[in-house]
């Protein structure tokens, strides 16, 4: 009797658990291809990942190699120390570390690049079979071509000629068949051009949000890539290298190719200009002050400037997902740290500030006036030198181009309702000085601190404690959001990035025309001056290389363009040959009553001179053991 009960229990138990097989479980995160691509929303889901991988050098671009990759570095460990690529050029420094020009200035982007190419090729392969109308099919052809062009451009500018893989390879154990040799640099750039044109021919104007490929985004990409290729062809011989890769044309192009690419740049740029879809954001400011604020707002909210933005990469935090960045925490001045331990890292240099025109003397870079005799070629304080005495620590910047004011936090100016204190020391009434060290002195019953306030939290400059204070005398605000205080935590910045904007196209056009003699000189001069006019200039300058390059540097500063301008024009090794970068130190002169400021030029405290080695114009080819490719010269 009882045995039956037990058996009954056992059998019941087995039935209960045996009826659904406990082993037949399904993953919760996988989807079949048919399910995904049968609906435009599914295509969009896949597109999201392709755009995510697009090598856009935005706020989440980290020029050095690290875990998690060069792009979207915040997807992995977001702590990149607050380094940006501009700190490898003449226009900026890091507040704490001696970041500078080195082999580390631009990391590799190879495996990730070919992954994106494979991922987009996977979609390209199924486009003909998708059950969609021809219009949508054309759009997909255009959009995938845009992505592929973008990827190959990013490869070409790093490596020269690369293997051109235009369809997703089938995996087989016969790996020899999977190996593709490098194409020449010329062929590679040609491929980028063809893909851009394919995209432009198939895409439409877009819905105005500018966040997906459009006809004009494709043309803008072509304009940029063509200018890069043309410059390489024209200036390659400024820093020639030799070796197998050169002999085979894998790096380097003949100078004769230059005009061909310049023409493509001109054509693509003209197509955008003539479309009349775009114009400069607030092109006619009433005053330099208004121009400065217009310029700042353009970057604070590119969505408010659809007439200028051609391609935007968005940043968002929705729920726990994000494409957000860390500019707000790394770069807000120390006084606004909000608990974040390492703010204030982006320090524009004195030479960057010097580069801007003053309104009185258009057409030349005018150095900031610090000394009475006008000889600004000096380093360090000299008591025998006669310094100009300013009422405020930012008066020295008066009359400078509005974009300087729109980009930088200058000493003693207001940011987020706080006066940003940047001071490097004082000169006591007896003429003795205290620079770059803590301390105070009392004059006429008033206590003065070397850094401008008693505690390190009350100022944003020069205090070496924490490495959180600018050490050039200039703070950074171009891509910071003034009305919004983000959480002091990783990946909270949601400012959107204009990857391509109309001003760049105009500058590309002007440069291509000036360098090649092709195109419309008058139009080129006009568009160059249009940009200056938007910055509050009222007098025109001529279409010269110098004017264009200065304009390019100041207009596009900190948009991750300067580094490539120095690369493509082969200027880097000349600019950085045991080169120091400079600070401009606001010093309170207590000999005056009321005290005044003198500004002292000096080498950036705690920094070293840097040199660019010519071989760094190309990155070494990774993984040659398996891909069998020819390496770039001198690696």
């Amino acid at each position, binding site marked *: 009797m*009882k045995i039956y009960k*037990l058996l009954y229990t056992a059998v019941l*138990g*087995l039935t209960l*658990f045996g009826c659904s097989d*406990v*082993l037949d479980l*399904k*993953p919760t995160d*996988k989807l079949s*291809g048919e399910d*995904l691509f049968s609906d435009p929303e*599914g295509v969009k*889901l*896949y597109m*999201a*990942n*392709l755009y*995510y991988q697009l090598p856009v050098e935005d706020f989440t671009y980290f020029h050095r190699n690290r875990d998690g990759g060069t792009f979207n570095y915040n997807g992995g460990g977001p702590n990149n120390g607050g380094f940006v690529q501009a700190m490898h050029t003449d226009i900026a420094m890091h507040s704490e570390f*001696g970041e500078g020009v080195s082999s580390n200035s631009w990391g590799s982007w190879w495996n990730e690049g*070919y*992954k994106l190419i*494979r991922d987009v090729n*996977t979609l390209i392969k199924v486009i003909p079979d998708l059950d969609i109308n021809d219009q949508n099919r054309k759009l997909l052809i255009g959009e995938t071509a845009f992505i592929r062009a973008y990827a190959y451009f990013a490869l070409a500018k790093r490596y020269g000629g690369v*293997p051109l893989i235009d369809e*997703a*390879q089938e*995996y087989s154990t016969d*790996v020899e068949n*999977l190996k*593709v040799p490098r194409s020449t640099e010329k062929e590679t750039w040609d491929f980028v051009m063809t893909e851009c044109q394919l995209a432009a021919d198939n895409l439409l104007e877009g819905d105005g*949000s500018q*966040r997906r490929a459009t006809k004009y985004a494709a043309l803008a990409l072509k304009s940029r890539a063509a200018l890069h290729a043309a410059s390489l062809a024209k200036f390659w011989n400024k820093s020639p290298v030799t070796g197998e890769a050169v002999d085979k044309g894998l790096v380097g192009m003949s100078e004769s190719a230059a005009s061909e690419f310049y023409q493509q740049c001109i054509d693509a740029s003209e197509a955008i200009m003539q479309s009349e879809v775009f114009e400069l954001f607030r092109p006619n400011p009433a005053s330099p002050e208004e121009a400065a604020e217009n310029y700042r707002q353009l970057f604070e909210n590119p969505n408010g400037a659809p007439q200028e933005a051609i391609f935007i990469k*968005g940043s*968002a*935090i929705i*729920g*726990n*997902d*994000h*494409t957000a960045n860390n500019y707000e925490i790394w770069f807000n001045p120390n006084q606004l740290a*909000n*608990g974040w*331990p*390492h703010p204030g890292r982006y320090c524009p240099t004195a030479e960057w500030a010097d580069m801007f025109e003053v309104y009185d003397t258009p057409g030349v870079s005018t150095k900031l006036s610090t000394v009475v005799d006008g000889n600004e070629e000096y380093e360090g304080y000299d008591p025998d030198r006669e310094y100009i005495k300013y009422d405020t620590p930012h008066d020295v910047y008066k009359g400078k181009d509005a974009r300087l004011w729109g980009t930088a936090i200058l000493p003693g100016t207001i940011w987020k309702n706080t006066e940003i204190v940047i001071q490097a020391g004082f000169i006591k009434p007896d003429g003795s000085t*205290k620079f*770059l*060290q803590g*301390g105070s002195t009392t004059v006429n019953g008033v206590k003065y601190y070397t850094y401008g306030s008693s505690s390190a*939290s009350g100022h944003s400059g020069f205090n070496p*404690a*924490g*490495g*959180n204070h600018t050490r050039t005398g200039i703070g950074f605000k171009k891509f910071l959001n003034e009305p919004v205080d983000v959480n*002091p935590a990783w990946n909270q910045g949601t400012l959107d990035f204009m990857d391509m904007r109309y001003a760049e196209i105009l500058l590309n056009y002007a440069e291509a025309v000036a360098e090649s003699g092709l195109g419309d000189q008058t139009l080129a001069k006009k568009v160059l001056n249009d940009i200056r006019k938007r910055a509050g200039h009222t007098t025109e300058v001529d279409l010269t290389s110098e004017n264009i390059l200065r304009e390019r540097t100041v207009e596009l500063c900190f948009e991750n363009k300067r580094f490539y301008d120095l690369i493509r024009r082969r200027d880097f090794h000349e600019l950085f040959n045991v080169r120091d970068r400079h600070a401009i130190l606001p010093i309170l002169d207590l000999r005056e009553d009321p005290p005044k400021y003198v500004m002292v030029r000096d080498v950036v*405290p*705690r920094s070293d001179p840097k040199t660019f080695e010519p071989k760094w114009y190309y990155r070494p080819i990774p*993984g040659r*053991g*398996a891909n069998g490719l020819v390496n770039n010269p001198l690696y």
Partner: protein
Amino acid sequence: MKKHVFICLLMVFSSLGVFAQTSKVSGTVSDKDGVPLPGVTIVVKGTTDGTVSDVDGNFSLSTEKDKVLQISFVGMQTKNVTVADDSDLTIVLLEDMIGIGEVVAIGYGTRKKESLTSAISNIQSDEILTTTNSSLAQALQGKVSGLQIRQNTGEPGSFDTRINIRGFGTPLYVIDGVAREGGSGFQKINPEDIESISVLKDAAAAIYGLRAANGVIIVTTKKGKQGKTKFNYHGVFGIQSPTDVPEMATAAQYVEMVNRARVFSGLGPAYTDEEVANYQNGAPGYEGTNWYDETFKDQAFQQQHNFSAQGGNESLTFFTSMGYVEDNGLLKSDDLGYKKYTFRSNVSAQLTKNLKADIQIAGRYDKKESPAESFFMIFKATRTGDPTAKPYANGNPQYPSQLMPSNQNPVAMSDRDLVGYNERVNKNFQSTLVLTYDVPFVEGLSLTGRYSYDSNSGMGKRLGKAYKLYDYDADTEEYTGYEQFAPTKISNSWNDYSLVNFQTQISYDKSFKEMHNVSATVVYEQQSTFERWASIQREYDFYTNDQIDQGSLNNQQTSGNERERGSRSIIGRFNYDYKGKYLVEYAFRYDGSYRYHPDYRWGFFPVVTAGWRVSEESFFQDAVPVISNLKLRGSWGIVGQDAGDPFQYVEGFGTSGGGGYEFENGVYQTGASAPSIVNPALTWFESQITDFGFDLGMWNNALSFEFDVYQRYREGLLAKRNVSLPNTFGGELPEENLNSDRVRGFDLALGYRNNVGEFYYEISGNYNYARTNKEYVERGPFTSSWDYWKNGRENRFDDIVWGQTVIGQFQNEDEVVFAPIQSGDGNLKELPGDYIYQDTNGDGLVNGNDMLPQFYNGTPKQYYGLTLAAQWKGFDITALFQGSGKYTVRFREVYASMFAFRGNTPAYFYDSWNQNEDGTWNEGEWPANRYNTDVGALYAESEVWRKDASYFRLKTVDIGYTFRNHSWMKTIGVENMRIYANGHNLITWTDDFVKPFDPEKIEGAYSAGLTYPLTRSFNMGVNITF
């Protein structure tokens, strides 16, 4: 019945003995605690004459003078006593060291210790309870051979001590017959509930199939016992303090060091000579702040209480207990701490003559609280905080001060009222019903059904409050506040986990002709788990209270997911032994897992073991009588271990793992990732484990020695076949079962127990040494023999670290100039006092190519433990020494670079090379004080920074006195009572540099060494049975 006849016969014989020249002998037999031992056999050696002690341990018999009585009892050391005149003997038997008769859990069954043929260590409750700690792992450390235990942190409520069997990896934990806990759940088990823990160290683990390649730890909880109900109360109170904390520079040292560093940085000194002198003299206002002392207490309080009852009758027995543990943190704010409540009830009911039910129910509630700032950040702030600053602006406790570097004031950060809090609550419920049916018509056959249901739910809550740090301006008498961590945020998270386990088991156990002992067990098991979690977060526009509904509706964040797992298995085990001399066992598990492709999901894991009890052979007993026990044994088997993520065989586009994109402003689109190449054949690793060992007992098992050598050869470790695929392919190959490695080692345990009169002592020790060798490592071809030497991994130990060779310190500037280039800066930043690295390849440049393999990594290769115990009258003492060796520690950041984060720096760096104003140098132990941007290759990997952390420590001392048989105890109904005092982590012997960091502790996040200090504790306790 037979026994009674025997005793009667003995009595008859002894009464007859009067007629021979006999003397009458009587006496009592007890154990060392004075508890009478009934049923002890007393035999006149060389004869069949003898008797058995009665229920009070008394015996008497008649024998001739000078004869030797042999007194023996299972599990006790046999004693020989020579008969003298008028003998009235008091005989004390000590437990033998071998554990004869001890029952050991082996997985799906038990075995007597002497019949074991595989490497299984066993530890009983009383040995576990000699250590007082909130973690069970600490109570096991150093006590079990081959069980490698390393405490990562002393943080209350942190149960992440590393437990590793023989260097294999994280083991499987089986609690009362079900694989149901991870490492932290195991460490939370109330030690008072544990009857025994056994550790399957070799291929015997194969019966747990593809989760058991790292060995298995089996916990058996206490059951009821027939007899009068015994109540037990055990309470202990203690104080804990850090074993050591590295000293940071004082204000006086700091200002001097900062001045030195600034000079090397090309800046002027920050502090005037007068200020430096003031700090050195501690002038008013210049006292300096010790941030550690401001933030931490000297000691924290802990207490544990446990109440249990055990008893029963023939039809029902029970064990039930309730426990409470409180472990407080060292923060002065008292805002860090841990509490745990446990409950267990194990009831056995004899339902009918042949049907027995065991109902085991256990519950646990625990809660960890801490300030919203992590301990790491608080502790770091005490390390880096400027010692010349003050905790409060103007000394006003209303206004916590701003503090350089990085605005982190540890006093403020540790205050939950200011910064908010973190709370983690865990509720755990485990239940098992076991029905055992002894089939009446087949002797030795029984059927068992086991059904378990477990539930675990965790709830986390975090409130991160915005707060202000202040400056005080003495001139204006104003406080300026700087906002920190705005906006205030609140989050809740939940996870819920259920486990259902079902087993049916058929067992057969029978002896034939008292020679052939046969047993067999077959089990069907299936297990399913289900898990769901979610979390929510809101921000506050204005903080009201700590409820999620009060937060703003903007910027809400949510997430959640589910996971299911399942397995089914058939297990078999077959034993045969001949007269207990020749033992063989064969066992297997046929294991199926949801993780793998249906065609590749079933694995078969067999094990064969054999043993020979040499000491049972009569020829051996005669030849070597001093050896009372000798068993040779060996085992071989295959065990599996799950590898990689589940469902790797499923092709398709991924809805996770792809990046997202903002196609529309403010609308984030999640992305789908491209299909990867799948490997349907992906499967588990397989470990072949081989073990040879012997157990030796001498002098009636007063001495025991166990020795095992073992090897684990592991195949099918995951690697990507990335060698040959060109990196332009754009896809990654899936993981495949390609690599292999091998662990080899040995462990041994030695014990000796004896008495001198009423003084009993015991010494036991254990040692384990193991290293892992890579066998096959998938990779591309080497480009040169140098590449092979430098980067090859195959057939090499996996535990070697490469570093620069330090050949001295620069003595002057000339040496710097003429030395090989030490770093990328071309020796521009090297100074006298800096380390000179060997230019091994002689190319004039010191870089990574000059490194040599010269250090062990951070994982200990050897573990040792030594226990000394003694007892005299009511007093007892146990001392446990423990240590590990052959490994290194390497700190980074604060402890291994000067002025990391530009804040305070360890005091040891004060003794450094420094330069006089005339440019001459004073020697010091460390290189010159500099900021980390002003050093060259100073912090390169070398013997300077990577230190041997081998240590030996007095882990536990436990001293007690037990009251027994006092008349006052009878009056109040107390059976016995022990009062004791013990200490934990008392004395440590190790490298002088490493000691303040505690060598046992790992470096932790960023290798910064900023984990919670290990603690030394002193405790007083009482244990009453009534």
